[in-house]
């Protein structure tokens, strides 16, 4: 896949991988145990410009192309899914705001997001509304006192909510979907950390409770009625690209750890890598890695080119790499045996983190429903076009 990258993209990818091998991989297990990423690490990522990498320079971002964004996620995903999650949600909030925010909103919020001085969180999921986002129960009402809204409800499983300075909250306003920026510290907003997760343990997940939270109407992003059809999809598109590429990075981690182990670990007179059954596992991992690389590149290029197929290409990449990551992590643990079951080995963390990849930004089943519908629909159109009789 390297041949599809520009010299600049290749150089950036090398830079990202070096950063991760030096600053992330050696510490990721410790962060996982402590369920927290140290502030200096986030600051380091911010100072490097990574947290605003997709935003235009006009707002203090780096203006990197989507392929470079994908490569950054891949590199970070090799080291820590939780740390990649910070970039994921930061970009989801930033890009939704860039597309649908007013100029005043962009001028106020995008510069601190671009510089990583503020972390954003995408508050969509609720205790009773995960995949079924139409069922949101979070409610905005017009305030009788001023030009503001009153917010009540709950959000759950919100990545980075523990460290976020602003939340893009989705809910209903008089039966219309609405998205609104809610700053941390707004009276009535409670943030309760979620502990003891299986994976993404240092991802800063939290539950949010809104008790009569008052926010200015000027904080509405987009227009009421378009939050789920237009605002959320922009964020989710970047969320899926990020997750697809992060899953690819995790897959590479499984592959690299496995081949390194298989080359030196001996059973009797043979290395593990000389055993046919282990070679089968590694062959599947390696070919999944190659296939996933192309799918992720294709998704990133489609988004970069701003073509309507970008949504489908991104669904395909996320569907493939998240499932392949789960398989690879399971096989990586199997190859390492007992040592792979201990927290001292990154593959045990990969094993737990990979499963989360199949759930966030749309479950595997949601992807199957959407992709199945798209593929069958395309087949139906082809048939009609080639068989005029059936068009009648």
């Amino acid at each position, binding site marked *: 896949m390297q041949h599809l990258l520009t010299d600049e993209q290749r150089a950036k990818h090398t830079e990202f991988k070096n950063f991760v091998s030096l600053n992330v991989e050696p510490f990721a297990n410790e962060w996982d145990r402590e369920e927290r990423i140290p502030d200096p690490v986030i600051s380091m990522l911010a100072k490097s410009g990574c947290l605003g990498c997709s935003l235009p320079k006009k707002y203090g971002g780096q203006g990197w192309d989507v392929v470079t964004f994908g490569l950054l996620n891949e590199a970070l995903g090799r080291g820590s899914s939780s740390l990649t999650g910070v970039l994921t949600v930061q970009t989801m909030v930033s890009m939704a705001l860039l597309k*649908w925010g007013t100029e005043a909103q962009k001028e106020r919020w995008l510069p601190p997001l671009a510089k990583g001085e503020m972390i954003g969180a995408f508050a969509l999921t609720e205790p009773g509304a995960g995949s079924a986002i139409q069922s949101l129960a979070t409610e905005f009402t017009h305030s009788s006192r001023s030009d503001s809204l009153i917010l009540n409800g709950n959000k759950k499983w919100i990545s980075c909510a523990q460290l976020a300075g602003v939340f893009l909250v989705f809910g209903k306003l008089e039966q219309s979907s609405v998205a609104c920026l809610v700053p941390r510290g707004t009276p009535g907003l409670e943030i309760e950390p979620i502990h003891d997760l299986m994976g993404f343990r240092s991802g800063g997940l939290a539950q949010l409770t809104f008790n009569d939270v008052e926010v200015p109407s000027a904080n509405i992003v987009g227009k009421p009625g378009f939050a789920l059809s237009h605002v959320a999809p922009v964020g989710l598109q970047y969320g899926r690209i990020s997750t697809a590429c992060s899953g690819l990075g995790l897959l590479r981690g499984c592959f690299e750890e496995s081949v390194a182990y298989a080359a030196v670990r001996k059973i009797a007179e043979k290395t593990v890598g000389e055993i046919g059954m282990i070679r089968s596992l590694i062959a599947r991992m390696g070919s999944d890695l190659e296939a996933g690389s192309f799918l992720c590149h294709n998704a990133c290029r489609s988004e970069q080119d701003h*073509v309507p197929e*970008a949504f489908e290409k991104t669904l395909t990449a996320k569907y493939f790499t998240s499932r392949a990551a789960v398989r690879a992590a399971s096989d990586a643990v199997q190859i390492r045996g007992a040592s792979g079951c201990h927290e001292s080995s990154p593959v045990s963390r990969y094993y737990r983190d990979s499963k989360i990849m199949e759930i966030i930004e749309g479950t595997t089943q949601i992807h199957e429903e959407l992709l199945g519908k798209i593929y069958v*629909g395309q087949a139906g*159109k082809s048939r009609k076009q080639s068989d005029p009789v059936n068009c009648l």
Partner: protein
Amino acid sequence: MTSLNTGKENGVKETVKRFILSSINIAHLGDDDNLFESGIVNSLFTVQLMTFIEKTFAIEVGMDDLDIENFKSLNAATAFVVRKNGRGG
């Protein structure tokens, strides 16, 4: 001038129509058929149509353009594109 505008509109309409017919599973689309009321498109298509229009006609759909009236039919989308192009995107 009128004929120039009409020619431009027809070109836009044909382009948008080709995209819609190649994207959704219908054989015929009337100029004023309501895409949303008829249930022939879903929210995914709404975003895809917007992306197509932005890419093809080099315009940006912004917050002020978020109005279902702009995209509800072939004629509505055509008028929207011509209007946006007329004022430079």
